[in-house]
């Protein structure tokens, strides 16, 4: 039995089973309802949906930022509810609002992330340089983050999140606020990162980005999954994605 779990965790890095989330205990409205999907090694999974569809809520539940009302989330076989510290060691999360400790310099933030994720000293220099090569923060890395622009904060969050080379890299609206050049480089990096055996899960409402890099697309509408598209269906192009997109609206959010 244990072997099965280990083998499953080896390929299925993330499994989300019947995830439900209500923000107010007394409310009858679900922000996410019965979300079930999985992500395997090497996959780039996109959570697609309109504004308010429930993408961010789903990601926050997966990462343990907010408690799950019902359901189960496992990362590398570790339950986010029962073994949160082990599960969280397997991934890192870049939020859409770049919540970061603003009074550190960029370099101090990278050191902090290395410490929290226990990155050995000998690996750090190489990872700093690799991150710099991909995100190009330049001299600003020595400045205090509170003086960074929106895009620079996004970059330092991404750089920090990659310090321990997480098996699962989770990003909420990663392209927001980035210049076209950096967007392109982030897209390339996501593809490379997945190709090297890691998994990427990200939310977006940018269909071009989704069709370019996703190997799986989970379309969320009114807090529920309306369709999961595989790489073949995504490869059919934007038209198919648009079709599902237009069929998803948020007027029928489920109540009990």
């Amino acid at each position, binding site marked *: 039995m244990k072997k099965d779990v280990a083998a499953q965790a080896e390929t299925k890095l993330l499994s989300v089973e019947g995830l439900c989330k209500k923000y107010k205990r007394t409310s009858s409205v679900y922000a996410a309802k019965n979300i079930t999907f999985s992500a395997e090694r090497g996959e780039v999974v996109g959570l697609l949906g309109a504004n308010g569809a429930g993408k961010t809520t789903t990601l926050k539940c997966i990462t343990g930022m907010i*408690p799950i009302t019902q359901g189960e989330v496992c990362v590398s076989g570790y339950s986010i509810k029962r073994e949160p*510290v082990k599960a969280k060691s397997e991934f890192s999360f870049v939020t859409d609002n770049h919540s970061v400790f603003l009074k550190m310099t960029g370099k*101090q933030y990278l050191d902090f992330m290395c410490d929290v994720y226990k990155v050995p*000293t000998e690996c750090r220099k190489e990872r*700093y340089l690799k991150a710099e090569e991909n995100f190009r923060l330049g001299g600003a890395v020595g*400045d205090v983050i*509170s*003086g960074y622009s929106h895009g620079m904060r996004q970059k330092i969050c991404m750089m920090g999140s990659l310090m321990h080379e997480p098996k699962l890299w989770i990003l909420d609206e990663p392209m927001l606020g980035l210049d076209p050049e950096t967007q392109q480089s982030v897209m390339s990096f996501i593809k490379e990162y997945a190709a090297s055996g890691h998994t990427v899960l990200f939310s977006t409402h940018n269909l071009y980005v989704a069709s370019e890099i996703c190997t799986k697309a989970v379309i969320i509408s009114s807090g529920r999954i309306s369709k999961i598209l595989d790489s073949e269906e995504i490869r059919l192009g934007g038209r198919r994605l648009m079709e599902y997109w237009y069929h998803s609206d948020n007027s029928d959010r489920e109540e009990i």
Partner: protein
Amino acid sequence: MYGVLLKKSIRERFSFDKKRADVSGALLSLLLTAALLFAAVTVISNLSVLYADIEMDGIADRDARVTELLSFIYAVIFVIGVGDGIKNINFALFENEDRKILMTLPVKSSTIFYSKLTSVYVRQLFAVAVMLIPVNIAMANAAEADAVYIGMTILAIPLFPGLTLLASSILCFPVYILKRMLKSKYLISLILATAVLALLFYGYKYILEFIRELFTTGNIRFFFDDDVMNFMIAFNKYAYPVNLIAKLMIGAELTKNILILCAVTVAAFAAGFGVVALLYNKVQLMRASSSKHASSSLKRAGRRKSVFSGLFAKEFFQIYRTPSYAFQYFSVAVIMPLMVYFCMGIGEDLLKQLIMADASAELGLFLVLTFGALTNTFSATNISRDGYAFYTLKAMPVKPSMIINVKVLFSAMIAVLSILISAVVLVVAEFVTVGEATYIFFVALFMALAQIAFATGKDLRHPSFSAEEDNEVRESTQTVSQIIILGLLTGLILGGGSLFVSVFLSGVTPAAESYVKAGSLVLSAIIAALSFVYLYKGLPERLYNMSEGEN
């Protein structure tokens, strides 16, 4: 449009949000203000009567003395008004985030600018009225108030802010530039703030010594000797324009002085607006100009630290690089032993001279607990200080207990240090014995730990994350007010209680003093233990279940 913007600015300044109202905080502020005003009115009233009777070269000149005292007090109000004006002009013109929105609206920048400056004037008007009216009430007896005195008081209220506005508008830009220069010089700012605070307390000690002498000898000439009197006379002569307002109060050369003052105020008001208008754009341009990058390279990798140390470093940077937090954390704690020392010297003398009692240990405990209560309020924002980044910490592989331990340890470190130094100072200055200092140290230590644990637990249950761009908690939260009240209350019960027993009951029951000491020690330890239970009980569930917008 000017009216609309002015209304918005004034509403922002004086609005009261019922939903987010900090009732205990408002009540505390109200009580403190009322107590301060009452104390100020009482002291000034008694002092002014004594001062008015001072004879110079054997000649009493009541009008001259009242004018001197009024000039001096008005000068103090003027300085406070200018300080407040600088703060408000800088905030309204350069820091308030609504500037970005207003700039995009079809409104002339001059309209935005003048409406904001007018709102600063209105605020100054309010502040001056709050200070000037009680002072004039307190001085009424000495000044033998008549209709002119009342009329001139009413006239001075709108005139005074015009004068402070000019001084504020001239000084606001140099202050703003200085602030910008010091923005990244955290250590220099911290040292400056600590020095200013120490200086203030030195002045405070001077005033307390004066009050002590007044109480014990009743002789005002001890302080107002010939040198001080000559200074007061010279000050009154040259302290323009506040000496003109003082002269108005006693009705001296009324028409001439009213005309001069009105002309000066109108000119000052116009000049104030003019100066700000002239420099505003230049400073905005300077603000927008890019700054150099600090030198740092990714080629040097940081050495690996434990998760605990990493979190500790994060906590340090966050406090060290936020001037208000650094001031609360470092400066206040550094100053605490000084405050205890000053007050102990005066308090001990007063106790001995007024009620012939020797209760140094109890007085020491009372002072350490009271000042400690104020310094430990810092921990009431232990969680809120992280802002929404606290949620990202939840997504990291860190145990909840570790997150909290770091915060408690960080607060406890400075608290223990300041209590220890205070206890050592009390011994070195020979106020108490080593044994008594040890007793003071442990009771204060337990109470500090209790306060830190309780405050952190309370903040964890009800965090107030800042909506500001830099996450800084600028306004006092409900938890802060409650912690101040609770801290002062326990300081009063434990410190004041033992002081009371020592002064009034030790003669009746000789053993009472030792019982009270043992009791205080045990009670403080129990309170500390209970506070830690409050903080750590069900911590993982509480932290993991914390959620934005969840009830």
